[in-house]
């Protein structure tokens, strides 16, 4: 009988309990959760573009809404998570793209260090061009 023959595949139960089993897993999750803040912040920027397209009054209201305590709290959290994403990403860069020179691989610290240096210069340049200082 076909019904008796049908497979009933075993699905291993999976929960999120493992996260708290080791600090390393918590750090991994903190890194992965940065995506929620990057997504939320990008959607906020898209909303800002909408208000800009709607004219000066709408854009003024957007800037005013940015000044709410909730928005400030979100910005601080998003900044912390975004910076954590950057740090983990640049630390992984030499593993993702090992850089060979002659026989030897360039030391990982130099590849990550170059990323951190570019990050710093780029960030300062963006803040300067935006007129932040």
């Amino acid at each position, binding site marked *: 009988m076909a019904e008796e023959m049908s497979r009933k595949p075993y699905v291993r139960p999976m*929960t999120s309990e493992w996260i708290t089993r080791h600090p390393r897993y918590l750090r991994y999750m903190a890194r992965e959760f940065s995506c929620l803040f990057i997504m939320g912040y990008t959607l906020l920027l898209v909303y800002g573009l909408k208000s800009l*397209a709607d004219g000066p009054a709408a854009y003024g209201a957007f800037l005013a809404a940015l000044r709410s305590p909730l928005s400030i709290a979100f910005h601080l959290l998003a900044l912390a998570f*975004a910076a954590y994403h950057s740090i983990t990403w640049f630390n992984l860069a030499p593993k993702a793209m090992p850089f060979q020179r002659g026989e030897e691989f360039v030391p990982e610290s130099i590849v990550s260090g170059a990323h951190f240096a570019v990050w710093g210069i780029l960030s300062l340049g963006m803040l300067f061009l935006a007129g*932040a200082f």
Partner: protein
Amino acid sequence: MAKSNKPIVWGPFAAGGTVTAFVTPALILITLLAALGATPELLRYEHLLAFLRHGLAKAAAVALVFVSLWSAAHRLRITCYDLGVRADGMVATVVYAVALVGTLASAVFLLRL
């Protein structure tokens, strides 16, 4: 060789991970300054409008929105799987749809400027 759509999904994820690592913290700092009342010059209505009316700035903005949303969406999908959500097809559809709709919306708003 087996066909796979993995490179198409993963390419923008890697690009977005790199781009957001380099520029997102500085962007957040710029709007944080505005949130604290010290609005940088660029965020003043006339300045931002003039800046984003350039074709290159529009293209860069759409590209930034796309890779940021896509890489966050991909990471969220993997995170859902890690947390024990096994409905991967549905999760993938929702998160990539958010990324594509957000990108499309940004393009529409930029073209209205």
